[in-house]
């Protein structure tokens, strides 16, 4: 069992994110990263010169943290290029909290930006020139024409339906509730209400998943700043403490996932909750990686919000929407707010805003404990962060 050494040692003190209703953002990835870092530092009342820990997962070249630090002109004494896809930022928060607790850095930043929607309009991004390398994926999966990442999640959904009787109607409710939150978020890409029937009538993409089961493709960016609990209390915003964190990755290729109905969130969530000394019933608001509707059902089960196999009936009750017993993805999530390829940074930013009471129309009243859970790759890399207000520390 993990001990609770890290509990409350570090806090998120600054956040920023960028997205737009038309799905595009102006500027290059590098400029957006810089803008997000500047905004998040300003939110905290800190400056670039305070940053001595840099956490970044993606880059045009071979060394994300080296290249970004050089671009920004900083020389961090703590560096982390951990790349787990969409969950990288939750992993970064875990690592940053540990680094801060151990004295390896004082002020840590994790940042993300991507412009896939604008790249598509321009006919390519910095990934577009890449050719298929001699990877295991190319050798053992690519010849079979699985649409990625959609098809991997479709395989998980099909297996879940076979094993537990989960239905498309049940999963559709995840998308319906995401729109209800998005309606209250002026920056959300999709704000029109939809019904379960709308989801079921949308085009089949990879059975059993349909268009409205799938996340968006938009530009987006964000950053999170962390520091020690002591220093956090002197800064501009109310600190949001890292109460618990956990990570587990089980595979890289979907064909190597041990059980398509069980993710590493069983491990990451249990660790995060144990570290926090809390459980699912203590959580006031959840931000769950919603790349596809099935992802949310799997995560709710694996994090312990409902028993294994009951994710379908659980979401079908409408508990995730405004006024529900488990408010989830209060921005509208990847299904309706924004999804630039790796959604994890937005989960953290919204969790922090909810705990600060900055949620505006979509504020969950009295939220004291929030859970942000990232999923990277194809249900590959799971990372859970439990956050809390001063009252919970």
């Amino acid at each position, binding site marked *: 069992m993990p001990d609770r050494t890290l509990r409350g040692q570090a806090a998120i003190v600054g956040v920023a994110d960028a997205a737009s209703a038309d799905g595009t953002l102006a500027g290059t990835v590098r400029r957006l990263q810089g803008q997000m870092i500047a905004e998040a530092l300003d939110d905290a009342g800190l400056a670039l010169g305070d940053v001595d820990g840099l956490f970044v997962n993606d880059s045009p070249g071979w060394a994300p943290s080296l290249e970004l630090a050089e671009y920004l002109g900083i020389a961090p004494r703590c560096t982390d290029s951990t790349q787990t896809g969409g969950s990288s930022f939750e992993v970064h928060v875990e690592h940053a909290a540990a680094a801060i607790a151990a004295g390896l850095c004082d002020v840590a930043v994790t940042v993300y930006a991507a412009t896939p929607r604008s790249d598509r309009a321009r006919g390519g991004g910095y990934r577009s020139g890449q050719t*298929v*390398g*001699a*990877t*295991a994926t*190319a*050798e*053992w*999966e*690519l*010849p*079979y*024409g*699985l*649409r*990625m990442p959609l*098809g991997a999640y*479709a*395989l*998980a*959904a*099909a*297996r879940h339906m*076979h094993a537990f009787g989960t239905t498309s109607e049940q999963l559709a409710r995840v998308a319906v509730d995401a729109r209800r939150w998005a309606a209250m978020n002026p920056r959300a890409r999709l704000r029109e209400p939809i019904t379960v029937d709308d989801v079921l009538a949308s*085009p*089949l*993409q*990879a*059975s*059993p*998943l349909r268009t409205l089961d799938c996340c968006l493709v938009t530009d987006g960016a964000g950053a999170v700043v962390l520091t020690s609990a002591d220093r956090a209390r002197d800064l501009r915003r109310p600190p949001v403490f890292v109460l618990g964190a956990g990570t587990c990755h089980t595979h890289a*290729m*979907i*064909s*190597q996932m041990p059980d*398509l109905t069980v993710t590493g969130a069983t491990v990451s969530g249990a660790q995060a909750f144990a570290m926090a000394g809390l459980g699912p019933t203590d959580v006031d608001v959840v931000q769950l990686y919603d790349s596809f509707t099935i992802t949310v059902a799997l995560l709710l089960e694996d994090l312990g919000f409902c028993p294994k196999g009951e994710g379908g009936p659980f979401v079908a009750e409408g508990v995730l929407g405004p006024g529900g017993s488990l408010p989830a993805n209060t921005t509208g999530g990847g299904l309706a707010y924004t999804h630039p390829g790796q959604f994890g940074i937005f989960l953290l930013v919204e969790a922090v805003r909810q705990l600060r009471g900055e949620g505006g129309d979509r504020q969950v009243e009295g939220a004291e404990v929030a859970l942000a859970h990232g999923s990277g790759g194809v249900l590959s890399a799971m990372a859970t962060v439990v956050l809390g207000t001063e009252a919970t520390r």
Partner: protein
Amino acid sequence: MKEATRFEPPESVAGAPFWAATRDRRFVLPWCVACGRPHWFPRDLCPHCLATELEWREASGRGRVYSVSVMAKAANPAMAGREPYAVALVDLAEGVRMMTNVVGIAPDEVTVGAPVTVTWERLGDGRHLPLFRPSTAPGTMDSPAPPGASSRSNA
């Protein structure tokens, strides 16, 4: 529509013996001499015990569909004209799981748990790609999928 040429997978050092066998439509799996277990995908060490002495054994070519998804659109230009087609994970009798296509049946009729048998599609370079067909379907192990079977509309 005429089916495009399949994507020809790169050949890793560890996978080379597998691909060599497919030139003769032989289906082989890597087994660990030390711990006696097979693995998939092919590595040049055993993922169960890290031993490096492996041997290739003829596989049964039989398995069951662990999960399946029908692609309504082609994943890439090399698959254009084949849609809708079924991508499946198949659990082989030997206890390993691999990605494949199930052919020789309407894609939306492929079910989880269905017994399947290996069949081969020739690649442009003389290797063969292992696909699977329903075990109860007519035809021999070496016969290709019936023409048109993978292009039936997915209602």
